[in-house]
């Protein structure tokens, strides 16, 4: 029973392609997040949704578009992939906005753009 599941775990694709990463949580949490861990190892927030509503949108290229069909899902679509998009992307969820110690992370999706 994976609490926060991401698919795929690994993704290798060519520059210019469009790809999606899916995230689902079965914890009943209201808030979901996408984090990116780049080559410098920092974990940086990209987006946050609370009950399907976008609440955090960091300085991320608009080639990245999150979509939340319901509060249990937060997918990440990336258009026109670039080499610099190669990173590990982590989905996370928390019970409510502000529940800072209740983040549950998925196991990550390693994206490699060639």
């Amino acid at each position, binding site marked *: 029973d994976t609490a926060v599941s991401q698919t795929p775990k690994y993704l290798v694709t060519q520059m210019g392609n469009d790809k999606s990463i899916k995230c689902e949580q079965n914890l009943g949490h209201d808030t979901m997040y996408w*984090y990116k861990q780049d080559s410098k190892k920092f*974990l940086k927030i990209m987006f*946050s949704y609370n009950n399907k509503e976008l609440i955090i949108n*960091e300085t991320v290229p608009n080639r990245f578009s999150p979509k939340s069909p319901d509060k249990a899902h937060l997918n990440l679509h990336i258009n026109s992939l670039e080499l610099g998009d190669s990173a590990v992307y982590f989905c*996370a969820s928390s019970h409510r*906005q502000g529940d800072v110690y*209740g*983040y549950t*992370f998925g196991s990550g999706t390693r994206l490699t753009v060639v």
Partner: protein
Amino acid sequence: DQQVKQNSPSLSVQEGRISILNCDYTNSMFDYFLWYKKYPAEGPTFLISISSIKDKNEDGRFTVFLNKSAKHLSLHIVPSQPGDSAVYFCAAVNSGGSNYKLTFGKGTLLTVNP
């Protein structure tokens, strides 16, 4: 702009000894601090946290110390066990802010040798 810094990329200790992982922050608005532990190919998992109104929080073998004036916190693990070998991320948040994003450091790889 590294608001949370973990200046030691790695640390190696002997089983049974104390492990001390350090973290510094620059944003004085941060008032809640967390440590996450990450095994390879897994997402970070919450370990322990501390509010800025405290200077110490203890949970079993894990103790976090906070020195607000120095903007410094540390995680002590005693006694260290081989299963503690992982990457440890320090994170901070301004819980009074309009959003609740965690700001992470780059992590410290702890290796506990049998």
